[in-house]
């Protein structure tokens, strides 16, 4: 039987504020344990939490970027459970009246565009960090520095059908969070965390199967792998006549398998109630408009504009807008050389990114400026250097930081475009290779490549390929007519 998966994701994004959500402790990462706590985040009796204005602002910004409707009034709630990293015995979250609802985001899959619904976006506080003792040590260790660091939880509709879509959804979410600068959303650093609800059903069935909850997937790759594994596991259970048990599973990256969570208690009975220590949040139309006005151009809009304005393919526009710094880099290059945006896209995506990837560097670390890429493409467009030479020039710019123009001048890298000079070289190459000429004339036209290679060799790569081609075809035709 053919099955389809039904997947919904719950994503936590850490907001990039200076201080915590309900107290003035620093959110700085990596400080010594328990040095960023105060009576409020330690949950001492008699203290009062006060909402950080920037948290509300960032959360609204994120919700708007995810096409949500912002509730004019939203309320904080207590989610009650016991765990050593939660000193108050409850987490301040939102429940009945979340900040925002009814949004969506769009992903580009190999099968086309897909819209994934977003059920809700709400604000909450993070818990502390538990460190488990080595084998044989009967203790765990708790650091409360992270307690009270602001999070938004983004809950998707169960619209995701494949592990690949789940990965694309998360990557898009990360891109958007980075564009609007509310979070760095780095999964490895725990700034973006993802839990998944997943069930399977026979294709065509509309009722939902029993779902399991997957946790502990801390990279995009792990999310995809864990979901792939879980789909296969559920299929096997059903095919063997078993039933799926609703449970929480942990992804074990070492084993490449999901395991039943062995924590003693895992009751989903949180007894939510409105948080009496915090008054409701009212988002006025005025505030909403102010935040909306602060939103930058979002990835989808930018992509559409790149296609329209620069004549890029959908794929190129997608790649170039997948990170804001890349889009900015590209546009700075276009500004410096507006005549050939398509070539610039290629140079940025293929040559520059290729080099950066090989060294595991980001575009922000690129030793080449957008203006230098623009200058390089301009030199090719003017015919001063060939594309092949330009690659060597880029390699030198990359190493030395020197402008392409300067490298070209210093090394005398000028393309040979003089027709009479090239004609003599072409003539000589044809004379030296009479067999190949015969083959060409006999119909093996692909052998042109061989001649071009020989000419390039004779000119040390400096020959202008367009001119060479033109002369070569002309000369070969003449030879054909002479026969």
């Amino acid at each position, binding site marked *: 039987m053919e099955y389809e998966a039904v997947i919904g994701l719950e994503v936590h994004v850490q907001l990039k504020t200076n201080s915590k959500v309900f107290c003035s402790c620093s959110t700085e990462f990596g400080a010594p344990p328990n*040095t960023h706590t105060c009576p409020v985040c330690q949950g001492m009796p008699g203290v009062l939490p006060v909402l950080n204005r920037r948290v*509300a602002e960032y959360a609204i910004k994120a919700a708007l970027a995810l096409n949500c409707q912002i509730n004019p009034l939203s309320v904080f709630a207590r989610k009650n459970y016991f*765990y050593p990293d939660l000193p108050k015995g409850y987490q301040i979250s939102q429940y009945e009246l979340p900040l925002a609802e009814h949004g969506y985001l769009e992903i580009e899959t190999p099968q086309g565009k897909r819209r994934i619904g977003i059920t809700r976006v709400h604000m909450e506080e993070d818990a502390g960090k538990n460190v488990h003792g080595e084998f044989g040590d009967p203790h*765990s*260790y708790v*650091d409360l520095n992270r307690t009270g660091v602001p999070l938004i939880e983004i809950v998707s509709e169960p619209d995701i059908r494949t592990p690949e879509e789940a990965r694309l959804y998360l990557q898009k979410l990360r891109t958007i969070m980075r564009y609007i600068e509310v979070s760095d959303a780095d999964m490895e650093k725990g700034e973006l965390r993802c839990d998944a609800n997943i069930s399977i059903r026979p294709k065509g069935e509309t009722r939902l199967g029993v779902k399991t909850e997957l946790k502990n997937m801390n990279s995009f790759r792990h999310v995809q792998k864990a979901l792939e594994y879980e789909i296969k596991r559920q299929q096997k259970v059903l095919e063997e006549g078993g039933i799926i048990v609703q449970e929480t599973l942990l992804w074990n990256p070492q084993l490449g398998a999901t395991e039943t969570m062995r924590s003693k208690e895992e009751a989903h009975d949180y007894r939510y109630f409105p948080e009496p220590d915090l008054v409701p*949040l009212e988002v006025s139309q005025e505030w909403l408009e102010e935040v909306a006005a602060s939103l930058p151009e979002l990835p989808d809009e930018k992509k559409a504009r790149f296609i329209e304005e620069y004549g890029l393919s959908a794929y190129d526009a997608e790649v170039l807008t997948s990170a804001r710094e890349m889009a900015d880099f590209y546009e700075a290059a276009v500004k410096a050389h507006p005549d050939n945006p398509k070539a610039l896209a290629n140079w940025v995506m293929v040559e520059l990114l290729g080099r950066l990837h090989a060294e595991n560097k980001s575009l922000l670390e690129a030793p080449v400026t957008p203006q230098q890429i623009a200058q390089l493409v301009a030199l090719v467009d003017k015919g001063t250097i060939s594309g092949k030479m330009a690659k060597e020039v880029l390699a030198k710019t990359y190493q030395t930081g020197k402008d392409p123009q300067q490298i070209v001048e210093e090394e005398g890298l000028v393309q040979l475009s003089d027709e009479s000079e090239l004609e003599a070289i072409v003539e000589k190459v044809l004379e030296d290779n009479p067999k190949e000429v015969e083959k060409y004339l006999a119909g093996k036209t692909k052998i042109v490549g061989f001649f071009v290679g020989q000419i390039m060799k004779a000119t040390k790569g400096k020959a202008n390929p367009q001119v060479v081609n033109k002369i070569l075809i002309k000369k070969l035709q003449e030879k054909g007519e002479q026969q």
Partner: protein
Amino acid sequence: MEKIGKAEVLHVAQLARLEFTEEEVEAFTHQLNKILQYVDQLKELDTQDVKPTFHALAQTNVMREDEVRSSLTQEEALANAPDRDDRGFFRVPKIIQG
């Protein structure tokens, strides 16, 4: 009619990590039922056009600016801890088995 039985009281007690004597369970079962009866009485009012109250104060948007102020020192933070280690962590019984 009793809305809450002993089993429910014990369940909530378990969630709140509370231990009760047999007499206390009896007493709380009785009291909780009385509270619910009172709520039922309130429910008789027509609240069709009344906005729900989420907070006792008729106030919204009490906020602070995103500014860092000094926190407790590590020693102060750990002062009331039943157990700690030299690195400055709270030490608790092992959370995950294994």
